[in-house]
């Protein structure tokens, strides 16, 4: 196929992939520390998309400004969920944590369905369809902003994990929970902080997505399986893995869409996901389980 079609497809894949990476970062962070897959991740994204939607529609707050309100709000929400619901309800049993996050996913998705019905909504912003020409391609401005935002967040998260005391505590709990506890780390607090950070990632991703995307109560499900794929591909719990995995999945999806069409392109992602899970469950960058 001609390069003039292939190159924009790859670039668009990278731009989308950055947002996948951002969503996957939240998931991988929670997995790395709690060693559990947060099945509510996708519905938290849906909730954040609804929040960003109503901030714009009802209050007239631009999504790029709303991010500064929604990020702390969702951090607090995530913190509370882990501290007061998931933690106490699951009695520290892994299987129970899985089921509780699944229960939360069912509650959030259907509460949104109950409140807003199944309608698909979009917002109108002046820059929604703006494009700038780069090297003979026309790139969508909101998607470029999304890419930049995802890169900034990944960097900030990396700085937080490597430089701050909280970051060190998070890494310590991820590595050796009991040891960290013996050194005076408040493990339930760190669990909740991690869950809060994961939820905050989703809120940022929602604000960056909403100018070019739509929202309905089921929208998170489309992203969550992509995020699972990304995380599994990059290695569960690996932050660089999530970033690379996200970009890779974005490009693969874009190319599959180009060659196979929209609905079969989706299957490409699932098949990749199942193949990686079966043959290299520790992912490309993860440690052997």
């Amino acid at each position, binding site marked *: 196929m001609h390069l003039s079609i292939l190159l924009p497809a790859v670039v668009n894949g990278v731009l989308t992939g950055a947002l996948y990476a951002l969503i996957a970062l939240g998931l991988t962070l929670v997995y790395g520390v709690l060693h559990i897959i947060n099945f509510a991740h996708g519905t938290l994204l849906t909730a954040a998309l609804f929040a960003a939607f109503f901030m714009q529609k009802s209050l007239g707050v631009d999504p790029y400004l709303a991010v500064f309100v929604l990020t702390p709000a969702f951090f607090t929400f995530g913190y509370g969920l882990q501290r007061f619901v998931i933690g106490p309800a699951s009695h520290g049993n892994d299987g129970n944590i899985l089921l509780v996050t699944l229960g939360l996913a*069912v509650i959030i998705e259907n509460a949104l369905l109950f409140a807003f019905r199944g309608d698909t909504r979009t917002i109108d912003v002046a820059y929604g369809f703006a494009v700038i020409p780069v090297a003979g391609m026309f790139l969508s401005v909101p998607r470029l902003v999304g890419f930049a935002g995802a890169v900034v967040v990944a960097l900030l998260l990396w700085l937080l994990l490597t430089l701050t005391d909280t970051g060190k505590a998070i890494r310590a709990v991820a590595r050796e929970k009991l040891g960290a506890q013996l050194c005076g780390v408040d493990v339930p607090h760190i669990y909740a902080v991690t869950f809060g950070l994961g939820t905050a990632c989703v809120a940022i991703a929602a604000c960056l997505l909403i100018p070019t995307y739509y929202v309905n109560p089921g929208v998170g499900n489309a992203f969550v399986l992509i995020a699972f794929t990304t995380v599994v591909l990059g290695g569960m719990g690996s932050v660089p893995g999530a970033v690379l995995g996200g970009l890779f999945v974005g490009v693969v999806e874009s190319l599959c869409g180009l060659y196979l069409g929209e609905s079969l392109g989706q299957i490409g992602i699932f098949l990749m996901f199942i193949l990686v899970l079966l043959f290299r469950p520790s992912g490309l960058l993860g440690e052997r389980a």
Partner: protein
Amino acid sequence: MNLRAFLPIVAVVAALACIPLVIDSNVVLNFLVTALLLTLAGQGWNVLGGYGGQYSFGHAAFFGTGAYATAILQMRYGLNAWAAFAAGIAAGAGVGAAIGALTFRSGLRGSYFALVTLAFAEVLRIIASVAPVTGAGVGILIKLDVGARALQFSSRAAFYWLILALVAIALVVTRLVEQSRFGAWLVAVRENEDAARALGVDATRVKLGAITISAAMAAAAGCFYAQYFLFVDAPIAYGPWISVEALLAPIIGGVGTVFGPLLGALLIKTLGEAAKLVTGDAPGLDLVVYGIVLIVVIAFAPRGVAGVVARCHARLLPPRKASAGVNAA
């Protein structure tokens, strides 16, 4: 074999079988049919998740395969309904064995197993919503042809007895598993897979057996669904609703117990109907209630309703000897 262990099953099934003789309200029978349908799918989940400790989030893969196989074999290939029903169960069991062979052989456990089962169900849903043989987005209608030969009945009671018979078989199979050496291996794998392996249990084979039985039960529920509603499409057959409800029933009723799924299914269907009465036809609220009940049960009654009953029973009647079995219900 301890035949007395089967007496409670005979008693419960006999009592349930009498209901249509007393009540002939279609609303009540319809409610019971859907609850028993869920019992069957939930019993399937229970064999693998409850006794084996392998939490599947994708039992829709088996349910949907049963439903589609029943419908497709009848409508596209003109197979007799009874044969199609049996073939549907076999197809579901085959899909279960295939998924089990792939996942258990690569050593996927816990979160990974939950994820991969979910992904398989989603892949099947996407394929079913585009493939011509499944009727793609339109779905498949089974031709109305009332008569025992076509496995379609004009009376609700007949359908009710059919699903009750299937549930009875599932209860007996579960009790057989519970009492067999295979069941003991399965529980050992649930409690500590590495220790079980060290004692010489072939964990992979045991789990493979469990997922096959489990999938056959879920597929039987799917076959019945197709015969009862005479319609199958991708969101019904492979949608996440059945994966969620199939795990809710045993967990709420009492995970790893013979009667847990039955108790749980009756309870959540009652709650679902109550939620619908309160809010009218608004979608979503019944599932919100299910989600809340799931979390509350995990938080406060990890052994489900059966566990609560057992605890009250033990408090009222102090046992003469120490109760040995966890699965006393």
